[in-house]
C-alpha cells in the first residue's frame, strides 16, 4: 500500500518536474495558503439578508414562518396540523431547541430517524442568504439521519445566524472549532430530475422542508 502511495506521488513529482520530494518548506507554504485562506470573488448581495434568505428558500420549494422564540412549539404543531399530522417528532439539538420546554401535548423522540419517521425538528447551525441554504452540523444529540429520512423536515434557525455568503459559515465553523463529522448544506426539499428531466420532489430525502425563523432570539 505504501508502495502504491510512493509510486503515485513519485509519478506526480516526475510529471511536474518537481524532482525531489516536497521539502518541508514547500509543504509549509501550501499549509500557509490554507491557513490564510480568505473569501475570493463573491456574488453581490444587498443588506437585507433575511428577505433574501426567505426569497431564495421559497424559490427552491421551501416554506417558512417567522416566529418568536416562545412560539416554537405552537408553530410546529400548527404546521403539522396543516399536513394532517400528529404532534410528535424526532428532535435534534441546538441552542434554541435545547432551551425549549415542550408541553405534555407533544411527543418528542431524541434519537436517530428511521425509515418510517414522519417528522424531524432540527436546528440549523446557520443559514446562508446567498442561496437560501440551511447549514446543519452533526453532534451527539443532532444525528444526520434526521435531516434525510423523515418525510417532513422542520428546521429552526435563529435569524441572527443568517449570514451573507457561504464563506461566512466557514469562518463561523473555524472559530467554534466544531469537529462535526457531518456538515450538511440543505437548500430545499429532496428532488430528482432523473425521469425525463422533469423535477419531482421527495426523491430520497424529505418531501417537504419548512423553516421556522426565530427573530430576536437573543432578547
Amino acid at each position, binding site marked *: 500500500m505504501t508502495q502504491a502511495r510512493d509510486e503515485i506521488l513519485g509519478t506526480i513529482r516526475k510529471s511536474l518536474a518537481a524532482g525531489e520530494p516536497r521539502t518541508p518548506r514547500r509543504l509549509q507554504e501550501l499549509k500557509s495558503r490554507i491557513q490564510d485562506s480568505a473569501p475570493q470573488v463573491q456574488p453581490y448581495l444587498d443588506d437585507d439578508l433575511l428577505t433574501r434568505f426567505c426569497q431564495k428558500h421559497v424559490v427552491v420549494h421551501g416554506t417558512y414562518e417567522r416566529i418568536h422564540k416562545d412560539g416554537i412549539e405552537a408553530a410546529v404543531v400548527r404546521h403539522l396540523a396543516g399536513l394532517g399530522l400528529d404532534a410528535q417528532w424526532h428532535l435534534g439539538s441546538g441552542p434554541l431547541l435545547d432551551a425549549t420546554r415542550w408541553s405534555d401535548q407533544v411527543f418528542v423522540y431524541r434519537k436517530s430517524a428511521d425509515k418510517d419517521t414522519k417528522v424531524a425538528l432540527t436546528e440549523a447551525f446557520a443559514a446562508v442568504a446567498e442561496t437560501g441554504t440551511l447549514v446543519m452540523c452533526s453532534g451527539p444529540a443532532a444525528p444526520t439521519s434526521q435531516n434525510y429520512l423523515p418525510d417532513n423536515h422542520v428546521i429552526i434557525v435563529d435569524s441572527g445566524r443568517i449570514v451573507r455568503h457561504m464563506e461566512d459559515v466557514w469562518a463561523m465553523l473555524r472559530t467554534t472549532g466544531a469537529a462535526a463529522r457531518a456538515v450538511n448544506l440543505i437548500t430545499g426539499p429532496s428532488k*430528482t430530475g432523473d425521469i425525463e428531466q422533469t423535477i419531482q420532489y421527495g426523491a430520497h430525502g424529505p418531501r417537504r422542508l419548512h423553516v421556522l425563523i426565530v427573530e430576536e432570539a437573543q432578547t
Partner: protein
Amino acid sequence: MSASAASQQVIFRERTRQALDDVSLQRALAKARGGFVDHRRDAVDALPEFDAIRDAARDIKDHVLSNLDGYLELYEQKVIENGGQVHWARDAAEACRIVAGICKDAGARTVTKGKSMVSEEMHLNPVLEAAGMTVIETDLGEYIVQLAGETPSHIIAPAVHKTREQITDLFHQHHSPLGYTDRVTHREALVNEARSVLRERFVTADVGITGANFLVAETGANVIVTNEGNGDLTSCLPRVHIVTAGIEKVIPSLDDLSVLLRVLARSATGQEFSAYTSLYSGPRRDDDMEGPEAYHVVLLDNGRSRLLGGQYQPMLRCIRCGACLNHCPVYGAIGGHAYGWVYSGPMGSVLTPLLNGFDQALDLPNACTLNGRCKEVCPVRIPLSDLLLKHRLEQHDRRLTSVSGRFLLSAWAWLVRRPRLYQGIMALPLWFMHRLGRRRGVLSRLPLAGGWTDSRDFPAPARRSFLRQWHTRKARS
C-alpha cells in the same frame, strides 16, 4: 493501426449507427436537449460575477494540480487526524481490490452506492458481486440504469437515455417480486415506488460507497453534491463509509470550495445550488449516536499523474458537471453509450484516450465538429476543442491514422505550400463544379463525396476562385 484499434473503430461507428436508429433513445435525447442548455443560460445570466468566478475556479484547480503531491499529503494527514484511513490505488484493479477487501473485512452482504463516476471507471460493481455481495445504486438515475443492466450515459443524468415507458417496464419487472405489483406509469408514482424500495436498502446496508465532488485538504472532508439525498443516506447509515475519488479531486480550503460550488451546480443543471451539499470527515465521533464506525478514502490514479505537466494537464481541472455534454451536438445526436466508456461527450473524448491509451479511442477526437461550445461553457475553462485537436495531431504523429489518410494529408500539405501550383490545379475542378451546378446553384451529387451529398446538397462554387477575383478587381482599380 493495431488490430484492436481497428476493431474499436468499427465498434464506435456501429454504435453510432445504432444510436441514430434507436427511436426510444432519439426521443429521450430530444426531450433532454433544450432543458439543460436553457437552465444553465438563465442561471449564468442571473450572476454578473460568473465569468470572474470561473477564472477563480480555473486558477484554484491549476494551483492544486501544480502542487498536487503536496496537497494530497496534507489532505491525507487530515483524514488520519479525523480517524479515517486513506488508500492509494495505481489503477482500477488495485482500487477494486482495496474496496472489496474493506467490504469483506466488514463482513458486508449489502452495499449501497451513491453516485460515483470513479467507481464506474473502476468497474467496481461486478467485482463486489463476484465476491457475493448485493450492490445497490441509489441515485435514481443510476438505479434505473443498474436495473437495465446498462451503464450511465451522462455524468449527472445517468438515465437520460431512458423514456418513461422503459422505466415503467423496468420497475414493473424488478419490483413485482417485492410486492409492488401495480404497474405505475406516472413520474410521481415511479419516484415514490423507487423511494420506498430503496429506503429498505438504505437502512439495511452494511457498507456505503460514495464518490467525492471535492476533497478538502483544510478539513479532510469529502464533499458530495446531490439533489436526491441518496448520497447522504449512503454516507450516514451504514457501518462503513468508503469514498472513491480521483487524485485530482483535492482542493486546498473551504473558501476554494465555495468558488467551485458556485460554478458547479449552475453549469450542471442550471441550479444556483444543489439541494444537498455535504461535507463528511472521518467516522462517527465518540459521543455521536450514529454514523459509520469506519471511514475509508480510496484515491485512484489510473493514469492521471502522468498527465500532469503536459499539454493535457488542463483536462484534470474537470469537475464533472456535464455542461460540455449538454452543449455538444454530437453527444445530442448519439447519447453517451456510443462513446464506449464511462466518460462521454467532449470531456470523454479527451479523457478516454488519455486514460485508456490513444489507440483505444481513435474515433472519439474525430467525432467532433469543433464548434467550440464545450470550451465556451466549461466552468473551469478547459479548452476542450483545442485538446481534441491536439489528439488528432498526436494520432497523425504517432501514425495511428490510416495510411491513405496520412498520404492525402501529406500531399495536401505539400500542395498548399506551393500557391501557384495550387491555384492552377484547383482551377479545373472549380470550373467543373461550377458548370455542374450552374442551373440550381447547388450540387445534389458529387463524385467521391457521397457521404455529404446523400443527405444534403453541396453549394456550387463560383466560377473563379476568390484569389483570382481579388487579383482581377485589384488590377481594374
